[in-house]
Structures are given as structure tokens and as C-alpha cells.
């Protein structure tokens, strides 16, 4: 009998793996419509899984926080939260897709388009790529200038209609709509305009530099458009 239970569980496990994508979507839908708060506690019900590469969440003081924009620019900028709030604001509601497979549907973001920040600084000739740094002191990311100037790359200051939470990268993070989540660097503190792409943290560990959802990293997820 014990053996039958073990074999039965192996069978159920196999069925669960085969039907898992469908079941998992079902659970996400049910939780979203009945107890949306649950996803914050149990990401298996459709919420964000929180990834950090350092201990805890990096601290900052809203009064002294500055976003540095430098490198090949006409004017180096040091933007406070008030400065960012004074730039044209853009809202985007799109999915967030992680390269490990989870996806959070219809996340409302807002902030300043990266291209509006770059326009304010003025990109000098030769500035063909962007190097992003996080004040966690470790994480970095990259985009080509063309990717960064697209109208769906946000220097986000708000998420779900409220200031970005610590775990999501407060006070400022990137949201790169068409790419996997690792491109959307959290705790953004520096944007440097450079000549060539410098692969970011995960890209040095083997992930694709051009991380378009559905056509990179060997995955076939539905694109985020």
C-alpha cells in the first residue's frame, strides 16, 4: 500500500508537471479575483518573486537620493526625486515577465521615460550604449541607445499607483517593457552614456544581453508589447 501511495504521487506529480502551466494560470486567476493580497505573501499565486544579489534591501534617504546621469552627455545631471517628478510623467500598464518563468500581468507603472531623461541631459555623438548602476553596489545593467530611446523604457518611480516599495527597488528603478525582468534594474542610481554595451550582472553570468521576451534565453514566452 505504501508503495502504491508513492507511485500514485509520482503519477500525480507527472500530471501536475504536464498540466502545470494551465493549473498555475488558473490559480493565479482565482487568487487575483478573490484574494489579491495573497500574491504578495505566496508568489506561487501569481505575485512577484523578489530577487536581490546583496543582503537585504539597500537603504536610501529620499531627501538626499540622486540619480546621476553622466558619461557622453552635454549636461551631467544629478536628479533628486523632486527633479524626476518635475519631468513629464508617463504611465505604462504592462506585464512583468521573469526569465525564470513567472509573469505578473497588467502591472501599472509610472515615472519618466528614459528617453526624456536622456534628452534632458543631451546625448553626445558617440554615445551608443547605456550602463546602469544600482546603489546596492553590485547590480548593473545595459541597453543599446536605440533600445533605451524606445517609448517603452521607463525610469519608474511608482508601481500599482503608489511609490515603489523597497523590495521592488525604491525609490527609482527601470522598467524595460519588452525585455525579461533582469533588465529592469532596481535601486537605480546611475545612468552612464557609453560607446559600447557593457554586459550587466546576469549577462556576465550567461544571460542574453538583448533580452527580448519570447525570443531570447532559449524561451518562448508571449512577448510583452
Amino acid at each position, binding site marked *: 500500500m505504501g508503495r502504491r501511495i*508513492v507511485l500514485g*504521487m509520482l503519477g500525480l506529480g507527472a500530471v501536475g508537471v504536464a498540466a*502545470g502551466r494551465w493549473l498555475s494560470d488558473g490559480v493565479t486567476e482565482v487568487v487575483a479575483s478573490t484574494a489579491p493580497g495573497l500574491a504578495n505573501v505566496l508568489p506561487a499565486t501569481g505575485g512577484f518573486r523578489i530577487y536581490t544579489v546583496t543582503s537585504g534591501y539597500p537603504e536610501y534617504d529620499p531627501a538626499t537620493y540622486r540619480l546621476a546621469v553622466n558619461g557622453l552627455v552635454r549636461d551631467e545631471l544629478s536628479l533628486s526625486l523632486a527633479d524626476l517628478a518635475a519631468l513629464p510623467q508617463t504611465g505604462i500598464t504592462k506585464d512583468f515577465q521573469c526569465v525564470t518563468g513567472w509573469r505578473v500581468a497588467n502591472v501599472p507603472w509610472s515615472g519618466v521615460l528614459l528617453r526624456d531623461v536622456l534628452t534632458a541631459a543631451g546625448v553626445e555623438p558617440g554615445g551608443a550604449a547605456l550602463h546602469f548602476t544600482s546603489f546596492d553596489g553590485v547590480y548593473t545593467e545595459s541597453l543599446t541607445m536605440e533600445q533605451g530611446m524606445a517609448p517603452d523604457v521607463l525610469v519608474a518611480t511608482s508601481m500599482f499607483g503608489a511609490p515603489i516599495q523597497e*523590495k521592488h527597488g525604491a525609490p527609482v528603478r527601470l522598467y524595460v517593457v519588452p525585455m525579461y525582468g533582469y533588465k529592469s534594474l532596481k535601486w537605480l542610481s546611475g545612468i552612464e552614456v557609453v560607446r559600447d554595451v557593457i554586459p550587466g550582472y546576469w549577462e556576465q553570468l550567461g544571460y542574453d544581453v538583448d533580452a527580448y521576451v519570447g525570443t531570447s534565453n532559449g524561451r518562448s514566452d508571449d512577448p510583452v508589447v
Partner: protein
Amino acid sequence: MVAAMTLSSDAAVAPVQLQRFGTAERWVHRTIGILLLILIITAALLFIPDLGGLVGNRQTVRRIHEIVGFALPIPLLLALLSRAFRDDADRLNRFRPTDWQWLRSRDRRSGRIPVGKFNAGQKLNAAFSLGAILVLLATGTVMFFSSYFPDALRTGATFVHDWLSIAFIIVVVGHIYMAFNDATARLGMRSGSVPESWARREHGEWAAEELGTAAPND
């Protein structure tokens, strides 16, 4: 077998002890327990955003979870070398009609329904735990070698791994709770032997078998 026979006149001062678990079984139990504890802690850090945020270092936590996960079956496989472990596995595998009666009855602790070396709850726990470990190992392997599997299987494996681990943790907590309420049972797993009186009360058939008054039944 009777570990210590005493003269009847001494019985009151030196209670008879019955050998319940051998060295191999106790070591396997201890090793699996420690490995599972590490797996549960790292799982909680990987899985619950607000806990994981306190510790961070996701890569390191993940690496520990993976190494310990792949190490989990090793003590089980080594245990198969032990005759006592295999015998107990046989006993755990064997369900008898009285086991179902025992599970359904309200007075299952009264001793009315005979219980062998393991009661039906322990048998179910053992089977579920082994099944859960194997399924978690298999789905964890898919997640570890994820680049070799299509997206749908990766998502499916993650789904099964997530929810089965929640169920398994609940069962493990239940197991610890039952042990918490029975100091003699814990002593049995720690020292290997239990007093005859406890054995007669909790595992009457097994006690009779050990004392030589009944043939082995399960």
C-alpha cells in the same frame, strides 16, 4: 529482541527496554531531518518575498538549496544497506485491514485496535514523505537543468514543486508536533530503545512480538 531482561523481582526498578531503532535508522532519521530543515529554511527565503529580502544573497541561498536537495536521497540510499531499515520499510509498506479501522476509529489511542511496530498514521506519513521527496527531487531537477526543458515543463515543474513543498512542510510540521507530544517516542528515536510499558500501550502487537509472546505480524 529484548535488550535487557531483568529478574522479575527487579522489574519495578529496572523496566524492560525494547530495542526499537538501530544505529543506521537513527542516523538516517537525523541526517534527513537536518537536510530537510535546511531545505525548508532556504525554501522559505527563496519563496516568501518579505523573508528573502531580510537575507538577500539569493544566488547563495539558491545554491545551498540545490546542493542540499540533491544530497537528500544519499542517506536514504545508504540506509538501504541496513537490514533493520529494510525490515522497517517493509513494515511501513504493509497496510492491514486493522490500519484502516484504526484510522477511522475515534478511540485509536485506546489500544482496542491492535497496532504493530508502526501505526497507520506513521505508515501514511512515511509513504507520503517518500513520494514527496521523489517528486520534489524530480521537479527540482527540471528546475535545475531548466535550459534543457521546454517552457511549459519548466512552469509545470515549478508549479508542482511550489505547491507540493507547501503540503510537505505542513506534514513535516505535523510530524514534529506529534513527536513534541510524546517524549518517549522521541527517546526511542534518540536512544534506540523504549520502555516496555510505552510499547505495550502504543504498539501492543509489536511489544508482544518483541517479548516473544506473538509472531511478527507487520
